[in-house]
C-alpha cells in the first residue's frame, strides 16, 4: 500500500485512468493483434465482407457479454442470460414482422420481454434473498420452458428489411452491426456508467456493507443490474433473429452463450468478485473469444482439434492472472 502524493493538480491523472482501465486495454490490444492476423491471413483478405461476417458473429456474443457484465459487477452471476437470449429470439420470430410500425412495436415487445425476465431475476435475488447462481439456474430453466412453448420447432420469420439492414454494411464498408453495438454502448453503457445508479452498482460489487453504510440504494442497484442484463440479452436475441431469420429454442445454444459470456467477461478484465471492470472490456473479451475460433479456421487448423484448442486457450488466458501470485510476499494476500 502506498500513499499517493498529489503533484500539480491534473498531472499524473492519466496514471489512475490507466490503472483502472487496465483489463479493458489489454483485451483491446489482444483483439487488435488477433484480428489483424485474421484478416491478414484470410483467403479473401481484408475486405468489407470478411469484416462484416466476423462483426456479426462477434457482436452477438458481445451483447450477451455486456449483459453478463452488469450482473458480475454486483458480484453476482447470471446463468440465465443465454435462456433469455433464446426466449427473445423466439418471441422476435413472431412479433418482429409485418409493416414498419408493426415491426417496431415488435422490437419494443422483445426488449420488454428481456426486461421483464431480468426484473424477475432481480426481484428473486433481492427480495427472496437467494444466491444469484442458484436463482438464475432455476429461472433460466423456466425461461427456456417458455421459449419452448413459443417455438417447439424452429421457425418463424422476421422483418427482412430491418434484418438485412442491421446485418449488412453501411456506406464505406462498415458493418452495421458494429455501429449498432457502438450505439448500444453510447446509449446504454456510458450513461449507466457515469450515473449515480451505475456507481452504486460498482460499489455494491466492491463492498456491499460499505455501500449500505454509505447510504446507497443497494436494492435498486442490484435490480437495475439484473434488469439491464435482461435488456441486453433481449437485444442479442433480436440480433440473432436478424442473422438467422428464424426463432429456435435450442438449449445447446442457450448454454453455450451463457458460458461463453462468462469467459468473455473474464477475458475482458471484469472481476468475478465484483466492483471492477467495464462492459467495453467485456466486448473485446467476446471479440477475442470469437476471433480465436476464426483464426483457427483461417489457419486450416484441423476442425477436429479446434474445440480442444479453444478450451486450452481459454484455460490459459484465465490463468494469466495467476502471474500476480509470483509477486506475493505475504501468503495471507492469497486469500481473497
Amino acid at each position, binding site marked *: 500500500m502506498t500513499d499517493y502524493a498529489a503533484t500539480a493538480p491534473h498531472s499524473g491523472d492519466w496514471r*489512475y485512468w490507466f490503472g483502472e482501465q487496465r483489463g479493458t486495454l489489454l483485451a483491446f490490444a489482444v483483439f487488435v493483434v488477433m484480428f489483424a492476423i485474421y484478416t491478414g491471413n484470410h483467403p479473401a483478405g481484408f475486405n468489407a465482407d470478411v469484416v462484416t461476417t466476423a462483426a456479426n458473429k462477434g457482436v452477438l456474443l458481445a451483447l450477451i457479454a455486456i449483459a453478463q457484465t452488469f450482473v458480475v459487477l454486483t458480484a453476482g452471476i447470471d446463468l440465465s442470460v443465454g435462456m433469455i437470449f433464446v426466449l427473445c429470439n423466439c418471441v422476435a420470430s413472431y412479433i418482429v414482422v409485418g409493416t414498419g410500425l408493426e415491426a417496431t412495436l415488435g422490437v419494443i415487445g422483445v426488449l420488454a420481454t428481456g426486461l421483464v425476465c431480468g426484473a424477475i431475476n432481480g426481484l428473486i435475488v433481492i427480495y427472496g434473498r437467494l444466491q444469484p447462481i442458484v436463482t438464475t439456474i432455476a429461472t433460466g430453466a423456466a425461461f427456456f420452458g417458455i421459449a419452448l412453448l413459443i417455438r417447439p420447432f424452429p421457425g418463424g420469420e422476421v422483418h427482412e428489411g430491418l434484418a438485412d439492414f442491421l446485418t449488412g454494411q453501411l456506406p464505406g464498408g462498415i458493418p452495421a452491426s458494429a455501429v449498432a453495438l457502438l450505439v448500444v454502448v453510447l446509449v446504454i453503457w456510458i450513461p449507466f456508467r457515469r450515473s449515480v445508479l451505475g456507481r452504486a452498482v460498482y*460499489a455494491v460489487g466492491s463492498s456491499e456493507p460499505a455501500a449500505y453504510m*454509505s*447510504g*446507497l440504494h443497494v436494492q435498486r442497484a442490484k435490480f437495475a443490474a439484473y434488469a439491464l442484463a435482461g435488456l441486453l440479452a433481449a437485444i442479442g436475441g433480436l440480433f440473432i433473429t436478424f442473422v438467422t431469420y428464424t426463432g429456435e429454442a435450442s438449449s445447446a445454444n442457450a448454454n453455450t452463450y451463457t458460458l461463453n459470456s462468462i469467459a468473455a467477461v473474464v477475458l475482458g478484465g471484469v472481476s468475478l468478485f465484483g466492483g471492477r471492470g467495464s462492459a467495453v472490456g467485456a466486448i473485446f473479451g467476446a471479440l477475442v473469444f470469437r476471433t480465436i475460433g476464426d483464426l483457427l479456421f483461417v489457419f486450416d487448423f484441423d476442425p477436429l482439434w479446434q474445440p480442444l484448442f479453444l478450451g486450452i486457450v481459454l484455460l490459459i488466458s484465465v490463468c494469466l492472472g495467476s502471474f500476480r501470485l509470483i509477486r506475493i510476499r505475504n501468503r495471507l494476500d492469497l486469500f481473497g
Partner: protein
Amino acid sequence: MDGSTPAPLFRMEGVSKRYGGVNALTHADLTVETGRIHGVLGENGAGKSTLMKIMTGVVQPDEGRMTLGNNIVRFASPAAANAAGIVCIFQELSLVPDLSVADNICISNPPQRFGMIDRRAQRRIAEEALARAGGEDIHPLAPVKDLALSRRQLVEIAKALVRNPRILILDEATSALTAADVRKVFTVLKRLRAEGLALLYISHRMAEIAELADECTVFRNGRNVGTFKSGAKTDTEIVEMMIGREYSHVFPSKPAPKATSGAPALEVRNLSWNNRLKDISLVARAGEIVGLGGLDGQGQRELLLALFGVLRSTTGEVLIDGKKVTLSCPSDAKHGHVGMALIPEDRKTEGLMLPMSVRDNLSMASLPQLSRGGLVDRTAEGKAIDRMISLLGIKTDGTAVPVGTLSGGNQQKIVIAKWLMTNPKVILLNDPTRGIDVGTKAEIYQLLRKLADGGAAILYYSTDYDELVGCCDRVLVLYDGAVGRVLSGAEITERALVGSALNLGGAQPAAGTPSLAGAGAGE
C-alpha cells in the same frame, strides 16, 4: 442549570435493543447539544456501537424514542439518518475499496449534469473536503484500496464533512491515525464545534476524550451509568464506572531470571523480509515472556507472521531448540518438533470460524494429535476440550453453540485454547488483549505466566505499554523493522519503552511515524 440553556439538539430516551438473548442496550439515555463535543466511553460490548448504529439508522431500536430538535424521529436506513443531518465517521467500513477517493467522498449525493455524475465538480468538492479534513496530500483519483489505513481514515472524515451534518459521530475514528494526523483532526473538530456542530466522540482513549470533550457519558452493560462534565472525575473513577468494580491492573509476579543451559527454544538470526524486516536477531528461552514493543507498524506483526511461515522469501535463519527449521506454511510451524502457535491479530476473521461450533473451533489446530489414521478420536477430543474450557474458564452454553454467539473475551480465550491444545513450545501472540474486557485480560496474563513456567517460550506483541511492563521478562523494541533496543527486567519501564520506541539518540523517524499519544495508558 442555567435558565438560558437552549433545548438539546438530540435526545435518546429509554432506547433498548436486543440481539437474540443478549441485551445490547437497556433503557439507554443520551442527550446531545449543539456546539458541544460529547464523549462516550465504555468497554467493548457496553453498547456504544449499538447506540451509534441506532442513531445512524443501521439498526432499529426495540423500544424507546429519539428526538431531533422538536420532532420525534426514527431512521429506517443510513440514508434517512444522513438526510436528517446525522452523519457517522466509521473506522473503515464505509469506504468502497474499488472506487476512487473522490467517488467515495461524494458517494451519496454527487453533483450531476444531464443525469450523469459531474466528475470535475465532484473532484473540486473532494479536494476541498480533503483539505478541510487535513488530507491535502491524498490524490482524489487514487483508488481507496491502495491507500494506507491512516489515509483512509482521513477520507472517511472528508466524506462526512461533505454532508453538512448537524450531528457528527466519531466512532473510534482516530485509532489508525498518526499523532500528527490526530492533532489535525482535533483542530478540525474544535473548529466545527465553534461553528455550532454537535459532536459525539466515542472512544476508548481517555486522553483524547479529556482533551476534546465538554461532557462525557459512560456506558456499561448497555446502560448509561453516568454523565458528567469533563474533568469532574479522575481517570480511575471513570474506569471504575466502565468496569463496575474496583480497578487495578493485575499482573502476575515475574520469576527471577534463571540461569539456563542448552539451546534457546527459539532463536532468530538475521531475519529479513521485503524491506519491512531488517536483519532481526533474537533469542527466546523456555520460560521467558519476551515482548515486542515499539511504535505501530515497525514490523512486529510481520515478524510474528514470518516466524509462523506465512511470509515468503524471507532470508535468515530460524532455529528451534538449536536446530535450523524451514517453515513454508503454518502447518510446518505447528508441526511436532517445531511446535509453534500463533494467536492472530483479528480473531473474527483469522482466528475463528464464527458459524462453527465451539467444539469444532477448539479442535481445529490439534486435529493431527486428536486423530489416528485420519479419523478423529471423538472421546479424546471431548476430554481435551473439556479440560481446556475449565482451564481457561470459558463461558459458553455447551460446546455445540456457534462461536459467534460468545463474547469477545470468550472468543479470544477459545483462540488461545485452540492453540494450547497443540502443546506448543513457542507461543506467538499478536496483540491478544485488544478489545477485551479487563477481567478477561487479567486471566490471560495469569495464563501466559503459567504457560511460561511450564516451559513455553512466549513472544508477545502488544500495543499496550502497561502490558509490556507488567508481563514481560524482556522487551525487544522494534524500530523500522530492526531491533532497536533490548530491555530486561527492571529496565522495562514506560519511559524506557517510549524512549527507545522513538529511537531517541538514533536516526530520525520517517515523516508520519506514529508517536506515543493515543497508545496505552488507562485502557
